[in-house]
């Protein structure tokens, strides 16, 4: 009885004066516990950093806060009143605004048209009152000391300015709690400074903010409090002034690397350079990148989302325009102007977005595997032999262990892991020297992940060299023989052996080393 009373008292005490309080939030997705009993709070005028690796649960938590996902367990209090969100709209009404990584602005409308989208003020005639929209917008801009052109379509504004429009939009909805999910990822340092100034103004106005960023120095610049999540677990909260970088990195990555990775060869093979890329520049003013790929190795491209790894791979194979590059494949210089030229020279890619760029979802497993090498089954010079094609495809399906009722099954009906194996099968059907795996295990369950790592290792034993782009550190550490670390479009480190560990990679990719 007494303890129950005490509990009640303590609870009230804790919620007193808080702008927001999350209590015991849990969320599961099929097969994964994304969040496990997370409790956080936010005070007026507080900037609260959320730290964690990709997949730690930061974005999931923020989506629950904004009513985009519903929580399985736990309670949300806004200004000490419990709220239940049934969609984003409810969260907006409760005074919560989110600035997404991808902007939700309509590119051809101007700032105030975007800000008042779907709730445009009307004049006496029932027509849109543009003057009023403009006035209201200017009022908020003035308060925040933001100067942008509000009359031109937002796609003519810089990325930072578009972000400001998003912020103004949230504030015009009377948001007192703002979530900024990696807002600086697409900003230049100067633009980021402008954003920070605005955040300081908001802070002075009593707005509480959650700030997600991988750049620790930004957090030291702007935040008051840091909370760390790891694998959906709450690790800890501390004032920024009491923390240090080493401690934070350890809190973020301090997990055991699971034993789902195949054994690495004793010694990293370094005898034969298959591919050498020199001074690849995507645009004229871009940092030139160079690297080497040895025969039979798995080379990791580590880095934060948006650090230019996929872009480099695409520019390398000619999928996107490239300002300049020198590519030496097996000792011969090659132009690689298009993916088909790269294919002809033996370079293939498993694209980042499996469904949009890797597969033809409405086609069969067979068609997806055989699509880029029909010439090997030609009879009488012109005609594909169905029998030969089917036999090869069946063989490949068995080899890469695609679990499918038959090779004629529509590939869209398979699980993510099996879909990825189909894309791998397509490249096995070609005579490739170099394969680029771009986020090969994204959205794939643990069992299938292990199978894909195993397949990658088998491919290297056949002399194929692999570049693996991955945002999951444990995967990079568990699978790769060598690692290039990317930061802001540039390769900043080339790591091997003992140096391939969480702390070192993390320090390089966040720019603390």
């Amino acid at each position: 009885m007494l303890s129950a009373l005490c509990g009640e008292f303590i609870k009230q005490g804790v919620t007193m004066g808080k702008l927001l309080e999350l209590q015991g939030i849990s969320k599961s997705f099929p097969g994964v516990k994304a969040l496990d009993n997370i409790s956080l709070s936010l005070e007026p005028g507080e900037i609260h950093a959320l730290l964690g690796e990709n997949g730690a649960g930061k974005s999931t938590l923020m989506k629950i806060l904004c009513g985009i996902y519903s929580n399985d367990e736990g309670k949300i209090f806004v200004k000490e009143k419990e709220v239940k969100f049934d969609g984003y709209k409810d969260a907006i009404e409760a005074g919560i605004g989110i600035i997404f990584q991808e902007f939700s602005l309509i590119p051809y409308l101007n700032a105030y048209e975007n800000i008042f989208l779907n709730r445009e003020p009307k004049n006496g005639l029932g027509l849109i009152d543009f003057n009023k929209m403009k006035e209201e917008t200017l009022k908020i801009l003035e308060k925040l000391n933001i100067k942008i052109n509000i009359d031109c379509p937002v796609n003519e504004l810089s990325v930072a300015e578009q972000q400001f429009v998003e912020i103004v939009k949230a504030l015009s909805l009377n948001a007192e709690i703002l979530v900024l999910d990696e807002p600086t990822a697409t900003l230049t340092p100067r633009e980021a400074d402008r954003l920070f100034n605005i955040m300081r103004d908001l802070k002075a106005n009593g707005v509480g903010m959650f700030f997600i960023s991988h750049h620790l120095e930004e957090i030291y610049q702007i935040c008051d409090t840091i909370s760390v999540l790891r694998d959906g677990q709450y690790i800890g909260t501390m004032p920024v002034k009491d923390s240090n970088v080493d401690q934070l990195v350890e809190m973020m990555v301090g997990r055991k690397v699971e034993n789902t990775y195949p054994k690495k060869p004793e010694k990293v093979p370094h005898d034969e350079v298959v591919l050498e890329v020199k001074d690849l520049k995507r645009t004229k003013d871009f940092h030139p990148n160079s690297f080497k790929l040895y025969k039979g190795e798995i080379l990791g491209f580590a880095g934060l989302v948006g650090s230019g790894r996929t872009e480099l791979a695409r520019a390398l194979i000619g999928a996107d325009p490239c300002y300049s590059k020198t590519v030496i494949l097996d000792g011969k210089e090659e132009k690689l102007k298009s993916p088909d030229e790269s294919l002809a020279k033996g370079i293939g890619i498993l694209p980042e977005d499996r469904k949009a760029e890797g597969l033809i979802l409405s086609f069969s497993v067979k068609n997806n595997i055989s699509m880029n090498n029909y010439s090997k089954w030609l009879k009488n010079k012109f005609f594909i032999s169905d029998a030969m094609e089917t036999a090869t495809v069946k063989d490949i399906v068995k080899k890469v262990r695609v679990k499918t009722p038959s090779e004629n099954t529509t590939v869209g009906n398979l699980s993510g892991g099996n879909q990825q194996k189909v894309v791998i099968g397509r490249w096995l059907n070609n005579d490739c020297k170099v394969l680029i795996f771009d986020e090969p295990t994204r959205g794939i369950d643990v069992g299938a992940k292990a199978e894909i790592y195993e397949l990658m290792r088998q491919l290297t034993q056949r002399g194929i060299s692999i570049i693996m782009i991955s945002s999951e550190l444990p995967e990079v550490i568990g699978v790769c023989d060598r690692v290039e670390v990317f930061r802001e479009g540039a390769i900043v480190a080339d790591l091997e052996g003992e140096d391939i560990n969480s702390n070192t990679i993390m320090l390089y990719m966040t720019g603390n080393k």
Partner: protein
Amino acid sequence: MTNNAAPKSALADTFARFSRQPVFYPLIGFLLVFIIMTVVSDSFLTYNNLSNIGRQVSINAIIAVGMTFAILTGGIDLGVGSVMALSGTIMAGLMVSGIPMPVAIILGLLLGTFLGGLNGFMIAYGKMPAFIVTLAMMTIARGLALIYTGGYPIAGLDNAFSFFGRGNVLGIETPIVITILVYAIAYVVLTRTPFGRHVYATGGNYEASRLSGIKVSKILFLVYAISGFTSALAGLIISSRLMSGQPNAGVAFELDAIAAVVLGGAAMNGGKGTIIGTLMGALLLGVLNNGLNLIGINPYVQNVIKGIIILIAIYVGSEKKKARS
């Protein structure tokens, strides 16, 4: 629910398998209209009328082959009717000016292929939308045909030229023979050659095909060249049939061709469709036109009926698609 159904007969099993084939619905639609017409009109099921239908259908059916290629890649060719008219009038004009018939025909076919290739070049390498490029070609080719002829038909052709539109091969009318040939070739190309499979892949997912190393630009270029060729071939038949080059021939033919392809079960966004389906679609439209005329239905009303049938057919097809996914 317990499974107490009697074991399926082999026939039912075959039927069930056939019903999943993409040509199933177009074929059923065609047969349905065919049977209805046989019942309601005495003069429908006669040799004369059927070969009449065959001749009438052939022009649209041949154009629809090129259209099938274009739609399979997720594109469209609105220029087919105009390119047909231009190629047909050029053939006639060249012959009248004394150029030997085979040379004139070949030049006409080459012109159509060239114009189609030009479409393809702008779509594949200029990255312009197919709808706009071919819409422009539609008015350009029509304009050129009118300029070339001064707006009048070019008549006075050698009698031997009538073979392609009015003659016959072993008792079968030449347009029907040409149509069968074109469909046979298109069928083999689409189902049995790397090029044909790449046409499907490009339409199924352009970006995935491109990244996998398929030469998507070349595929698009060739597809529109093929569409230009089949349009010119239709121009040969129509000029021969009318024994004159008609600059105003083929207005709105692109719509009939699109209707045939779509009735044949193709998806407008590409990757799905068959050449046999297109043939069924063209036949369905032809039988419908012919039958409605025989019954004596007002031509204005015919338009409405045709439109409604297209809508119903597409609706039934899309229901099927939803159920499967």
